[in-house]
């Protein structure tokens, strides 16, 4: 009798990968003993429950597999061990620091003191305090909003817990929330369920488990008892069971499950600061340094010039406010999210905004193979029969190889019949390649291959009724089935077999050539081995096929085959041919890899696959370029031992997980620097972490792709973790900063392009934003030193920073690249700063000073036209600000009351504001490019810039004419002619910058280029 379908299955071929990963995992754990959390993980996996018999288990957990736990026991355990849920990581609330908060408080204190001195003192300090407080609150809300958007791994882990579990308690089947499961519970799992906790299998019925979110291996594999470490009978929480039913005992709950351990490992790996965050911090340090040093310097000057300390504090606030680009945080965030949206359209879903730029500065990409570089589907690539290798390309016309041969007829029959995979019903209209198949990857490939070439496979199978079958298992390494033939006159049974080629060949005594059986001699065996090696060398998975017609006399139609006793011959078969399969690379990948290379990005492949397969794929996608060789290749070519090959000659290296395990960090560093093309094969997902750390030691910005739960530590550790949108597990997606919606490597390249563009554009934005700081700062300095009436008020400055300048600085994010940004090296983390000395100097001291000058011209014009000539303004401050002086004489003998002067001062503010605004328009236009002329870039290509300019003008108009009557805002209605005073200065700024760019283009590499290019 045949064994019922169920507890054994093909697909062991794929579990091999999984085992390797597990092995690597363990090795890695041993290495990292110093790491406490990893240590815990190690302990966890060393459980021995799978070795125990059911009786021992019952004893250990104090349960009964038939009656289950009693309710009281369960409640007790629940109280003792806590619910079966992952504890969310403790969130340390970030205390957001607000420099302006102190400013606001200082302002109110200042007002308080002023109020006690003089009850009628003006409310200016209060207004300033309010505005600063408002800025603080807005910034706070903004920061909070960003925080809220940031990822939380735990949130999704807990979502993965199934709501209900079927559990046997008090001899009854009960449905309880999965959270209430305790150790020792007996649970029943149906097909499609998620496993609620770590369980030890007690019995199964045709049940397989998809453990992909743990191992990254997508093939459902049956958990049997054969390998202790792989613990085939414990199932892990969060795995899903696609088919069948099973009963098991809960052995671990909550954080003690394997997934809980990995989750804590992932959250234990500190998320590195993104490069852009580092850059912004660097920028903040510069700005804060400038602000604080100038502020304190002038505080000292002010005090020594006998200003009141209170006044000096207000000056200090003014200087700091003038220096702090209040709008920059919002600008950067909006800029990044605009790019994120743009990238989302290109299938890069950015979860962490800052990661947008990180991708641009990436210098090493550690890429997965399966799914990312390849299509993640096995495809028949080659056939070998009649002593010839044929290329099978099912995507094109399949008449490429000779199908007339009788060997092919036999081979195709074996391929069709010796296959358990089936199409899921109800998809007749779906193209063959896209049909969903029930079966493992290799069988799927074979099924689709035969369906394409031969037509309706199911029909053929129906005509050749299966009478017996030995499914694949890892000991036999072959699969066998016995069929009736479709020839009614031929009463013989056909036995077909496929399996590992060497095993299949052992069982054969003849070989079919051109449809004729020939004895298998040494020369044909030699030919077989050559072909096998060749196909294997291509990294393809090779299967051998053979058949045997059982003689009708010995095996009549009524013969009962017994697969347990094997009452039929399994040797002296007729070898028919070889077939090899591969997961082909995606068509867009080679191009994308070339682009990465020209962009100076090193692409490293990290895979759990066999080194030969890995190398073959690496070669076909260009990760190992056509003309580079590994040490082994050179050794083979020169026919010398590997040790004698000079390592310098080899550009490429293929390193296996085992080799990696024995490497010291120094050796890994050496490996990473010496070779430009590296493939890591047979690595565990955990080893990815080591590789990432190694790359980061080289000061590289590392992008890592991954899909399994085990990848999540590496994804977190990487500067930018990229998860696969289709194949990726939720845990990986959560740990990642970016999700590739189409799992396509090429999408990373477009992401890199966007990331680089955003870095350039942020530079422009910051240059634009910094420029006006000088124009805002100079008034205070001159006010303190020369005693002019204050040219611009603090609130007015805030209106520039948070009003007129916001939309233009965002508009720069829409600027197109000036040159091919994919043809330059990735920026060096420590050398190519966002804000460098030339940028600061050019913005502050060149354009900034010009702008300050222009704004002062407007200011002086207004005062002069109103009667105060510039000479009269010098040292006027004390008289000007005295409330009791109400007949201050101007240059023309006119007399001014205090309120008139105040009004004129506000007019001065407005004039200065308008002066800066007009020049910021010019500044905006010149910032469109850093090297090219504006006319090369096109003045109108970026329409958003013009929206920005329009917004500037409109906001200024509203402030002056609309809100000119609100005295708290210190704006007045400015006479129209004053709006044009700064125009010549604006034009001067434009011309100046064009000249700068011209010299940069004319004399690249010169002193000018080095100091004027930012």
């Amino acid at each position, binding site marked *: 009798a045949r064994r019922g379908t169920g507890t054994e299955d093909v697909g062991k071929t794929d579990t091999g990968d999984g085992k390797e990963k597990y092995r690597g995992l363990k090795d890695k754990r041993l290495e990292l003993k110093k790491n406490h959390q990893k240590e815990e993980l190690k302990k966890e996996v060393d459980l021995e429950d799978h070795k125990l018999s059911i009786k021992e288990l019952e004893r250990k957990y104090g349960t009964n597999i038939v009656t289950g736990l009693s309710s009281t026991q369960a409640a007790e355990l629940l109280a003792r061990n806590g619910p079966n849920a992952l504890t969310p990581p403790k969130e340390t609330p970030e205390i957001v620091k607000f420099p302006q908060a102190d400013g606001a408080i200082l302002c109110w204190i200042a007002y308080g003191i002023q109020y006690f001195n003089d009850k009628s003192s003006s409310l200016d300090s209060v207004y300033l305090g309010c505005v600063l407080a408002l800025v603080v609150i807005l910034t706070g809300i903004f920061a909070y909003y960003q925080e809220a958007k940031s990822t939380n791994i735990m949130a999704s882990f807990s979502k993965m817990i199934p709501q209900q579990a079927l559990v046997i308690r008090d001899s009854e089947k009960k449905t309880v929330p999965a959270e209430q499961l305790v150790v020792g519970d007996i649970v029943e799992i149906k097909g499609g369920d998620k496993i609620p906790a770590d369980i030890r299998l007690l019995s199964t019925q045709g049940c397989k488990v998809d453990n992909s979110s743990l191992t990254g291996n997508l093939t459902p594999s049956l958990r049997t008892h054969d390998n202790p470490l792989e613990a085939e009978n414990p199932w892990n929480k969060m795995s899903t069971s696609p088919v069948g039913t099973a009963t098991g005992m809960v052995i671990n709950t909550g954080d003690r499950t394997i997934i809980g351990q990995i989750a804590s490992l992932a959250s234990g790996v500190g998320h590195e600061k993104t490069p852009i965050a580092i850059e912004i911090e660097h920028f903040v340090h510069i700005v804060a340094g400038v602000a604080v040093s100038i502020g304190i310097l002038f505080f000292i000057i002010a005090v020594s010039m006998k200003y009141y300390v209170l006044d000096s504090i207000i000056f200090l606030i003014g200087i700091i406010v003038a220096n702090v680009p209040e709008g920059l945080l919002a600008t950067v965030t909006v800029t990044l999210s605009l790019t994120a949206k743009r990238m989302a359209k290109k299938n890069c879903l950015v979860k962490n905004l800052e990661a947008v730029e990180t991708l641009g500065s990436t210098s090493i990409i550690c890429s997965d193979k399966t799914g990312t570089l390849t299509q993640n589907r096995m495809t028949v690539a080659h056939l070998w029969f009649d002593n010839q290798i044929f290329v099978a390309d099912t995507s094109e016309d399949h008449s490429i190889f000779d199908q007339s041969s009788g060997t092919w007829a036999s081979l195709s029959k074996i391929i069709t019949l010796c296959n358990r995979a089936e199409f899921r019903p109800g998809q007749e209209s779906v193209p063959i390649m896209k049909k969903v198949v029930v079966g493992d990857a290799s069988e799927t490939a074979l099924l689709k291959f035969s369906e394409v070439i031969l037509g309706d496979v199911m029909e053929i199978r129906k005509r050749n009724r299966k009478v017996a079958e030995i499914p694949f298992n890892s000991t036999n390494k072959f699969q066998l089935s016995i069929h009736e033939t479709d020839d009614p006159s031929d009463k013989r049974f056909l036995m077909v077999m496929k399996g590992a080629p060497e095993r299949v060949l052992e069982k054969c005594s003849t070989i079919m050539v051109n449809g004729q059986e020939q004895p298998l001699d040494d020369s044909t065996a030699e030919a077989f081995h050559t072909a096998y090696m060749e196909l294997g060398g291509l990294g393809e998975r090779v299967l051998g096929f053979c058949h045997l017609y059982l003689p009708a006399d010995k095996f009549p139609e009524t013969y009962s085959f017994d697969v347990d006793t094997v009452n039929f011959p399994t040797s002296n078969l007729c070898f028919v041919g070889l077939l090899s399969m591969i997961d082909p690379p995606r068509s867009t990948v080679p191009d994308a890899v070339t682009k990465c290379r020209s962009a100076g990005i090193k692409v490293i492949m990290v895979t759990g696959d066999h080194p030969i397969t890995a190398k073959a794929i690496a070669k076909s996608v260009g990760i190992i370029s056509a003309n580079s060789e590994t040490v082994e290749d050179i050794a083979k070519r020169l026919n010398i031992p590997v040790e004698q090959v000079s390592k310098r000659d080899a550009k490429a290296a293929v390193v296996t997980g085992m080799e990696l395990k024995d490497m010291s960090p120094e050796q890994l560093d050496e490996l990473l620097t010496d070779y430009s093309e590296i493939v890591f094969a047979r690595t565990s997902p955990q080893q990815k972490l080591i590789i990432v750390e190694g790359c980061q030691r080289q000061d590289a910005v590392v992008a890592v792709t991954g899909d399994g739960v085990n990848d999540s530590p590496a994804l977190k550790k990487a500067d930018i973790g990229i998860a696969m949108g289709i194949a990726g597990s939720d845990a990986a997606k959560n740990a990642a900063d970016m999700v590739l919606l189409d799992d396509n490597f090429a999408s990373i390249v477009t992401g890199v392009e966007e990331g680089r563009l955003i870095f350039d554009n942020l530079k422009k934005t910051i240059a634009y934003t910094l420029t006006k700081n000088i124009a805002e700062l100079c008034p205070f300095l001159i006010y303190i030193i020369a005693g002019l009436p204050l040219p611009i008020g603090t609130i007015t400055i805030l209106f520039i920073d948070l009003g007129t300048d916001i939309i233009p600085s965002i508009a720069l994010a829409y600027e197109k690249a000036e040159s091919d940004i994919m043809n330059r090296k990735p920026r060096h983390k420590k050398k190519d700063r966002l804000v460098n000395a030339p940028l600061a100097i050019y913005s502050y001291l060149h354009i900034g000073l010009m702008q300050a000058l222009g704004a002062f011209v407007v200011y002086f014009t207004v005062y*002069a036209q109103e009667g105060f000539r510039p000479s009269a303004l010098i040292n006027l401050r004390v008289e000007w600000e005295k409330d*009791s002086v109400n007949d201050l004489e101007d240059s*023309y*003998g*006119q007399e*001014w009351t*205090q*309120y008139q002067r105040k009004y004129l001062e506000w007019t001065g503010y407005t004039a200065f504001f308008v002066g800066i605004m007009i020049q910021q328009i010019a500044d905006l236009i010149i910032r469109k490019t850093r090297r090219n002329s504006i006319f090369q870039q096109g003045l109108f290509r970026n329409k958003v810039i013009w929206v920005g300019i329009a917004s500037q003008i409109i906001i200024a108009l509203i402030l002056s004419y609309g809100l000119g009557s609100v005295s708290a805002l210190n704006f007045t*209605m400015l006479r*129209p002619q004053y709006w044009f005073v700064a125009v010549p200065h604006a034009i001067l700024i434009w011309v100046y910058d064009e000249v700068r760019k011209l010299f940069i283009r004319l004399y690249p590499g010169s002193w000018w280029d080095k100091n004027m290019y930012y």
Partner: protein
Amino acid sequence: MRRQLRSRRAPAFPYGYRYRLDDQDEVNQNYLADEEEEAEEEARVMVVHDLEEEEEEEEKEEEEEEEEEGQGQPTSNALWQKLQIVNEHLWDPEKRMSLARTGQSWRVMIRPFAHSLNFNFNVSEPDTWQHYVISLNGFLQGYNDSLQEEMNVDCPPGQYFIQDGNEDEDKKACQFKRSFLKNCSGLEDPTFGYSTGQPCILLKMNRIVGFRPELGDPVKVSCKVQRGDENDIRSINYYPESASFDLRYYPYYGKLTHVNYTSPLVAMHFTDVVKNQAVPVQCQLKGKGIINDVINDRFVGRVIFTLNIET
């Protein structure tokens, strides 16, 4: 030639609009006063709009004129001179108006100077009021009769003292003698009444270039108790007795050319004020179109101060 043509016109008003007067002596005061009132209400923007229209007009005129006279004189030179004038005097010779303007209504200020406008003194303690006397004396030095007679002209009262001619020509100033202030001149009573508890306070209007008080109608000064019992001040004497600012002191041409200009004053002699208590006093300008109730600027057309005389 051109300047002569221009000089027939009255000087423009500095706040953006201009009355063309065929003959300055035949000012239709009522008409103009009405206009003024209207104009007061106009926003600045509107005023500038008027200006622009005018500018176009002027340009046409200018072109014609230059065609007539333009032989031989290099235009650039004339332009340069014009620029010089504009630059130095902030005076637009085309529009005949000053570019520097402080406002459209009179502000007032008082002397002696007192911090936060509280006059607290004790009659029997000279130390408490001596600084007022010194301040007043100092302020009135420029009004000494001898100095005024020497420097300034005695011009006919009751009408504007309009002086045409080049913008950079020095203007004459009308005399305002210290003796006009009678009992508050400090000539007879060198303590300006402070020693007797009858303080003198001088009131002046802040100078505005080109601006004229209510077009032919002198501005009067009137003081009363601002809050509280009206009878706290039983009598005030004003000097000059008219309690007004004579028209002959206007317009003011600016200190560059109107060098010896002395602001006209009105002295308020508080001869009978309730003693030993703070009396808030409000002195207002009275006249057609005078604004004296602005909240923001407490010196527009009025001044509020406190008298607290102790005995």
